[in-house]
C-alpha cells in the first residue's frame, strides 16, 4: 500500500528537487518542525502571531484595491467595501479581527516567555526585539483602525497628533514632519505608515526576532484562522459614524489594547506624561527585564520577584484597560464628570495593586510548591500517564469521511448564506470549516502515525509506552536507506529540534506536553 505512494512521479520528483534546491537559500537555517501529534500552543504562540501577520498582509492587500485614503472619501470607500464589494465584508472582518488576534497573540506570547524565563540563555536580543516588535504591532493596529476615518478613528488620529505635538520643544516639528499639517495629511500618512512603513519595520524586526527553531502546527493555525472568522461572524465590526467636521462626535473609547493608556490620559494630568512617558516607561522596563532578572532558574516559581512584577503589571493592565472603557452611563451629570477619572483614586488603586500582586504571587508559589510536594509524596497513586483516545484504523477512516461530509455540508451552507446576503452567517460557517479542518488534519496525522506503526504484537503487555517509541524508531530506521542522502540529513535534523526545546522547557510544567514528535514534510 505504502509502496505505491512512495514511488516518485514527475511532479513529486520536481518538488523533491525544489526542496533540495532550497538548501542554498536562507530557509535551511530555520529549522521547521511539523508536529506529528498535539503540541501545546503556548510554545509556538510567536509563530501563530506571524501566521496572523501573514493573514493580515493578504487581507490588507485586498482591501487596498478599494480603499481611498482621502479625507472625505475614506469612510465611504470602507462602506463600499463592506456593503457593495462581493465578500468585501468578509475580507474586512478578517482583517479587523485578525488585527485584534495578532495583538492578543503577541501579548500572550510575551507573557508566556516572560513567566517561563525564556528570555535568558542568550535570548536577550530576541526579547528586546520582541518588545519593540510588540510596540510596532500595536502602532500598526492603531494606524489601521484610524484610516477608516469614522468618528472614533478621527478622535484616535487627533489624540495621536496632539500627543506628538505635546512632546516638549521638538513636538510640533515632529508632528509636522511625520504626520503632516492637517487631517487630510494625517489620513494619507497614517495609511502610508499602516500599509508600508510599519510592516516593513516589522519584517525587519522579525528577521532579528525569529529563533532558528520554529513549529508549524497545521491544526492550530487552522483553529486560529477559524476563531478569527467565527469572531467576525458573531461580532461583525460596524462602520461607526462617518466623521463630519461640523458635527462634534459622540463619546467613544479606543480599541481595547489602548484603553489602558486612555485611562491614564483621562486622569486630567499632563497629556505628554500620561499619554507618552508612562507607556514608554512601561515598555522600557519590559525591555530591560532580561538584564534585571538575575535568577539562575527558569520557572516562575523560582523567580518570585520577577513573577510578582509580571503579575502586578498584568493586574494593572487589566484594571486600566477596563477603566479606560468605563464611562458612567448617567447622561444627567456633566460630561467632564463622566469622563475625567479622579487621579487620586486612580493612582491609589495602581499603588494598591502592587502589594496585591506580590501577595497573590506569593500565594501562588506556595500553593504550587505544596502541590508539587504532595504529588511527589503520592507518586505511586498518581495516574501513570495521561488518558488517550485510541482509535482503530477503521474508525479513523470513518471519522475522516464523516468530517469530509460535514465540510461539504458547511461549504454549501456558507455559500448559500453568502448568496442570500447573510454575510456574517457565511463568515461564521467558513470559520467553522477551518475549525473542522483543524480537527480533520489532527486525525489525519494521527492516522498517519498509526499507519507507520506495525500492528501490535498479540500478547498485550502492560509497558506500552517504550514499546511504541521503539517501534517508531524501527520504522524510521527502516525507511532511511530507501530515501536519498539529502532526506537522510533532514531526518537527522528532526530529533535535534527536541534538544534545545527540552532545555528551554525545563522547570515549566508545559514541558511534558511539548514533546515534539517531529516529522518533516517529505513524510508521506
Amino acid at each position, binding site marked *: 500500500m505504502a509502496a505505491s505512494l512512495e514511488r516518485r512521479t514527475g511532479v513529486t520528483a520536481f518538488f523533491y528537487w525544489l526542496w533540495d534546491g532550497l538548501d542554498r537559500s536562507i530557509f535551511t537555517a530555520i529549522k521547521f518542525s511539523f508536529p506529528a501529534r498535539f503540541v501545546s500552543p503556548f510554545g509556538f504562540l510567536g509563530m501563530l502571531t506571524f501566521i496572523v501577520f501573514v493573514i493580515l498582509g493578504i487581507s490588507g492587500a485586498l482591501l487596498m484595491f478599494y480603499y481611498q485614503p482621502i479625507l472625505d472619501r475614506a469612510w465611504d470607500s470602507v462602506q463600499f467595501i463592506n456593503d457593495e464589494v462581493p465578500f468585501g465584508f468578509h475580507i474586512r472582518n478578517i482583517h479587523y479581527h485578525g488585527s485584534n488576534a495578532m495583538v492578543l497573540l503577541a501579548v500572550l506570547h510575551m507573557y508566556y516567555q516572560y513567566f517561563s524565563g525564556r528570555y535568558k540563555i542568550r535570548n536577550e536580543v530576541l526579547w528586546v526585539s520582541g518588545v519593540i516588535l510588540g510596540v510596532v504591532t500595536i502602532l500598526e493596529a492603531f494606524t489601521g483602525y484610524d484610516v477608516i476615518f469614522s468618528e472614533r478613528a478621527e478622535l484616535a488620529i*487627533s*489624540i495621536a497628533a496632539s500627543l506628538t505635538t505635546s512632546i516638549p520643544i521638538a513636538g510640533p516639528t515632529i508632528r*509636522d514632519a511625520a504626520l503632516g499639517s492637517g487631517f487630510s495629511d494625517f489620513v494619507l500618512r497614517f495609511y502610508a505608515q499602516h500599509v508600508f512603513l510599519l510592516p516593513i519595520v516589522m519584517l525587519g524586526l522579525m528577521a532579528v526576532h525569529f529563533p532558528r527553531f520554529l513549529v508549524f502546527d497545521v491544526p492550530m493555525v487552522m483553529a486560529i484562522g477559524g476563531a478569527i472568522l467565527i469572531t467576525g461572524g458573531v461580532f461583525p465590526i460596524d462602520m461607526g459614524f462617518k466623521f463630519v*467636521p461640523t458635527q462634534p462626535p459622540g463619546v467613544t473609547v479606543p480599541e481595547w489594547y489602548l484603553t489602558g493608556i486612555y485611562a491614564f490620559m483621562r486622569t486630567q494630568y499632563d497629556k505628554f506624561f500620561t499619554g507618552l512617558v508612562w507607556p514608554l516607561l512601561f515598555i522600557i522596563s519590559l525591555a530591560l527585564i532580561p538584564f534585571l532578572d538575575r535568577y539562575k532558574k527558569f520557572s516562575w516559581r523560582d523567580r518570585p520577584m520577577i513573577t510578582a512584577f509580571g503579575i502586578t503589571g498584568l493586574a494593572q493592565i487589566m484594571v486600566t484597560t477596563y477603566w479606560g472603557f468605563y464611562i458612567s452611563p448617567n447622561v444627567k451629570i456633566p460630561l*467632564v464628570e463622566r469622563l475625567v477619572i479622579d487621579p487620586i483614586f486612580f493612582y491609589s488603586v495602581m499603588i494598591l495593586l502592587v502589594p496585591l500582586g506580590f501577595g497573590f504571587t506569593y500565594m501562588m508559589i506556595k500553593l504550587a510548591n505544596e502541590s508539587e510536594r504532595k504529588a511527589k509524596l503520592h507518586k505511586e497513586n498518581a495516574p501513570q500517564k495521561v488518558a488517550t483516545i485510541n482509535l482503530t484504523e477503521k474508525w479513523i477512516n470513518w471519522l475522516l469521511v464523516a468530517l469530509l461530509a460535514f465540510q461539504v455540508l458547511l461549504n454549501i451552507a456558507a455559500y448559500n448564506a453568502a448568496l442570500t446576503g447573510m454575510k456574517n452567517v457565511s463568515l461564521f460557517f467558513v470559520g467553522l470549516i477551518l475549525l473542522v479542518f483543524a480537527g480533520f488534519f489532527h486525525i489525519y496525522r494521527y492516522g498517519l502515525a498509526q499507519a507507520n506503526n506495525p500492528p501490535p504484537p498479540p500478547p498485550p503487555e502492560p509497558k506500552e509506552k517504550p514499546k511504541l517509541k521503539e517501534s517508531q524508531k524501527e520504522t524510521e530506521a527502516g525507511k532511511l536507506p530507501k530515501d536519498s542522502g539529502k532526506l537522510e540529513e533532514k531526518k537527522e535534523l528532526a530529533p535535534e529540534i527536541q534538544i534545545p526545546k527540552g532545555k528551554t522547557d525545563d522547570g515549566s510544567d508545559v514541558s511534558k506536553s511539548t514533546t515534539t514528535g517531529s516529522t518533516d514534510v517529505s513524510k508521506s
Partner: protein
Amino acid sequence: MSEQGTQKSGGLSRRDFLKLMGAAGTGLAFAPFIPFGNYMPNPSSSSLEKVPVILPDGTQAHVDTFPVNHAEVITYPSTGDAALDAEAFRKWQFIRLPEELGGSKKEISSFRGYSMICLHLWCLWKYWPDEGRKRGECPCHGTMYDVLSGTAYVGPASVQAAPSNTLPKLNFEKDSDGFLWILPPKWGVNDNGVIGYGRFT
C-alpha cells in the same frame, strides 16, 4: 607600525589622516540630503486673505440677520476643494454672543470665531446656546470654554499651561452694509494663535 616614531614627533599619523579624510568625505557625501528633510512637512497652505464670512447655507453673515446666542461652523481658509475643506483644522465656530454678554449689539464685538480643535486632545468642541450652558463644550473629555475669551475654565484643557488653555481666534470686520468679513490672521501664539496649540491672551 613603522611610523610609530613619526607619531611621537607630533604629526598626524597616516592612518589617522586617512580616517579623517574618510569621515569628511562621508559627511560631505550625505550633507546635501539634510535639506531633503523639508520634503516631510506639507508646504501647501492657502493664502490668507480678507474673505467674507460664508455660513453653511452659502450666504454671507450679516449683523442684522445672524441670530443672537447662536453658532455656525465656518471654513477658513476655504479652498473650494471638498476634501481639503472637510479638514477639521479649517473649521471654526462662528458665534454670536448671548444677549447678557452683549450679543445684541450690531457690532463686531458681539461676534467670536474660535478654532473648533479642542486644545486637549484635538476633538471638535461646539457652542451650546441652551439656558445655563452658553459655553463651548468638548464632547471627548468635557473641557468647557468661556465664550467671551475662548479660555478653558473646566476640564483637562483648563489645567494645561498657557498658551494651551486658550483657543485660537479669528478677527472680523463689518463693512458699511453690515456684512461680516474675516481679517487675515497671523498664526502665532501672540497673535491669532496656533491651531491645536493655543494662544496667549
